[in-house]
C-alpha cells in the first residue's frame, strides 16, 4: 500500500491514470458491445435445379423471418418484423445476401455488413498452393455462386422486381467521373460523406462506408436501385443506368486515391485534419511548454 501511495504521487501518475481509465473504458465497451457472429447455416442442398434449390435455401435461411411464402411477418401488435420479399427483385436479394446483411443475425437498428454465410460466400479464396485444397475451394465458390443465383431466381419468380445489373453496366472505367461526382455530392454525400466514408444517422442507423474495396460496383448499383434499409431508392428512371455508372466511377476513383502523409482521417479535409492538428499538435505544444517551464527538482537524484 505504501509503495502504491508513493507511486501515485509521481508527477506522471495523473496522466497514467487518465490513460488507463480511457483504455479500460475502451476494453470494457469492446467486451460488452454485441458481436456479429457468423452464422453457420447447414447447407445440405446440393445441385438441385434452380427454383427448387432457391426455395430450399429460402426455407433454410430466410423463411424464419420473412415467412414461408416470403410474405413478411408481423408481431402481435401488427408491427412488421420483417418485410415482404414479393416484388423486391433479384437485385435486392443479391445485394442483401452478397454483402452478408442477410440472413440477419440479430434484430437491431440496422443490419451490418459481414462475411456472407458459407452457403452464399462467393469471396472464398481459391489461390491455395495445394491443388486439392484449391479444387475444394473452387467447388465451394461455384456452389455459393449457384446458390445465390438460385435464391435470386426464386425471389424474382415470386413477383418480379429489379434485375441484377450486367457487368458492363457497372464497369467503373466506363463512367463519367465528373458527372458522377456531381450526382454523388447532391444525392449521396449527405449520408455517405464526400469521399464515401459513411456516417451516422438517427437511432443507431448509419450510412455504411463505400470506401472499402469489398464494396463492389455491382453492390453499389444494387443499393441505389433497391434502397436497402434506410437508404432511399434511386431507380433507373430517376438516375439512369449511365448516371449510376458515373457515380460508381466516382466512388471507385476517389477510394483509389492514395493518402499521402499517412492516415486519411476520414478524408473529409480540413475539418478532421484541423481537429487532429488542434488536439494533437496543440496538446504536444502545451506539454512541451509545461516541460520547458516546469520548476526543476531541488537536487538531482543521486543514482
Amino acid at each position, binding site marked *: 500500500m505504501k509503495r502504491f501511495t508513493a507511486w501515485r*504521487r509521481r*508527477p506522471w501518475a*495523473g496522466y497514467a491514470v487518465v490513460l488507463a481509465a480511457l483504455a479500460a473504458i475502451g476494453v470494457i465497451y469492446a467486451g460488452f458491445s454485441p458481436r456479429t457472429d457468423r452464422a453457420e447455416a447447414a447447407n445440405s442442398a446440393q445441385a438441385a435445379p434452380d427454383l427448387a434449390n432457391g426455395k430450399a435455401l429460402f426455407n433454410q435461411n430466410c423463411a424464419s423471418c420473412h415467412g414461408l411464402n416470403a410474405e413478411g411477418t408481423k408481431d402481435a401488435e401488427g408491427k412488421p418484423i420483417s418485410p415482404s420479399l414479393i416484388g423486391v427483385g433479384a437485385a435486392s436479394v443479391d445485394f442483401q445476401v452478397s454483402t452478408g446483411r442477410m440472413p440477419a443475425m440479430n434484430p437491431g437498428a440496422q443490419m451490418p455488413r459481414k462475411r456472407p454465410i458459407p452457403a452464399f460466400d462467393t469471396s472464398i479464396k481459391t489461390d491455395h498452393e495445394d491443388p486439392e485444397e484449391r479444387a475444394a475451394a473452387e467447388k465451394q465458390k461455384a456452389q455459393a455462386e449457384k446458390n445465390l443465383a438460385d435464391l435470386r431466381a426464386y425471389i424474382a419468380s415470386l413477383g418480379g422486381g429489379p434485375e441484377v445489373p450486367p457487368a458492363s453496366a457497372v464497369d467503373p472505367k466506363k463512367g463519367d467521373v465528373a*458527372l458522377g461526382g*456531381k*450526382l454523388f455530392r*447532391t*444525392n449521396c454525400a*449527405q*449520408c455517405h460523406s464526400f469521399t464515401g466514408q459513411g*456516417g451516422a*444517422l*438517427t*437511432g443507431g*442507423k448509419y*450510412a455504411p462506408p463505400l470506401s472499402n474495396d469489398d464494396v463492389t460496383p455491382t453492390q453499389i448499383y444494387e443499393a441505389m436501385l433497391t*434502397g436497402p*434499409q*434506410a*437508404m*432511399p*431508392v*434511386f*431507380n433507373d*428512371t*430517376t*438516375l*439512369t443506368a449511365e*448516371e449510376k455508372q458515373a457515380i460508381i466511377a466516382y466512388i471507385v476513383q476517389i477510394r483509389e486515391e492514395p493518402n*499521402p*502523409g499517412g492516415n486519411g482521417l476520414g478524408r473529409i479535409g480540413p475539418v478532421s485534419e484541423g481537429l487532429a492538428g488542434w488536439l494533437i499538435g496543440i496538446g504536444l505544444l502545451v506539454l512541451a511548454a*509545461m*516541460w*520547458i517551464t*516546469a*520548476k*526543476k*527538482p*531541488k*537536487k*538531482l*537524484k*543521486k*543514482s
Partner: protein
Amino acid sequence: MSDENKETAGAQEPRERVIGTPSPARDKALLADGDMSAPAGAGEQLDEASAKRAERIVALFFLLAFAGSVAFIAYYIGWSGRDGGMHGVLRARESNFWLGGTMALSFLAMAAGVTIWVRRLMASKPIIQERHEFAADPQSRAVFAEDFMAGAEDSGLTKRPLLRRTLLLAAAPLGLAPLVLLRDLGPLPEKRLRSTHWGDAVEKAKRQGKKGVRLVVDGTHRPLKVTDFAQVGSMITVLPEGIEEDVPHDQVLTQVAKAVTILINVPEEKFKPAEGRENWHVNGIVAYSKICTHVGCPAALYEQTTHHILCPCHQSTFDATDAAKVVFGPAARPLPQLPLDVEDGYLVATGDFPEPIGPSFWERG
C-alpha cells in the same frame, strides 16, 4: 487525488491554484514560490555522474538533429528529383512530407537537446536584479521638454499656422478611411432572401400558358415524370427547369443554392398534408427546400424507413410525412414545402416556397 490536496493543505498554507500550474501535491518535489533557499536549475553543484549521463543524452539529441539535417539535404538532392522530374509536381506531396519531416526532426531534436541542457547541465544560482524607477529624473525631463519646444520653434510649426492646419487637414481623412470600409458589410439583401428562382420560373411558365415549371434532376437537367419517380422511398435533388440559362451567369450558383429542393416519394397512406396544402403533393411525392431552417446546411439525409429528413450539421430532424415538421433538433421551423402538380405527365411546381427558405434573418419577422 483529493486526499493528497487535503494533506498538503494542512501542512502548509493553502494557496490559490492557477490552471496550468503544477498541483500543490508536487510541492515536495519542487521549489515553492518565494523559496529562495535553494536555486532552480540543476542546482548549485552538479552531480558529476548524472551530469555525464545528461551530457550523453543531449549529445544524442544533437546527433539526431544532425542526422535530420543531413537526411534533408540527401533527400533533396538524391531522391525527390527522381521519376517525377526535379521536385516534379507529381511527387510534390511525398517530397513535402519527407522534406518537412526531416527538417522538423532536426529542429525538434535540437530544441529538446537544448532544453535538457538547460535543465540538467546548467548550474544556476539565484541572481538578484535591482529594479530602477521607470520615470526619468526631473532634470532629464526638463531638458527633453526644452529640446522638444526648441524643435517645434525651429520647424516653424508654432509660427506658421497654415502649415499646421493643412497638415492636420491632410491627416483627418486618413483617420476616417476605416469607417468607409464598413460599407463592405452591405449592400442589404433587401427582398432577395424572401424568394427563390422557383417563383420567377413558375411566373415565366405561367406566362407561356403552362401550369408550372418542370422539376429537373440536379446534375443531369432531365425533367422528371410522375411515372419516373413512382417508386415509394425514392429521393432526388431537383431544380427548376432552365435555372442555369435564365439566371445571369454570375448569379447561377447563388440561385441554385437557394432553389435546391429535395423530392421525396413517401407512402401516400402515411402522408398527412398540412392545412391548405392538401393538393401540394402528387400521390405522396412531396418537395421540400433542401436548406435547413436552422443555419442553412443541406438537410437531405432521408431515411426511407422512418421518413425522417435529417440535417447533418446539428441533427435537426424533419418528418417528411408531416409537412416536414421539426421532430428533433435546434431548427425552429419546418422545411418550406414546394407546391407540386402534374402537367403532361411531368412533375411541375406551381409556385414558389410560401415562406423564405433557410435560416432566420433579422427582417424575416
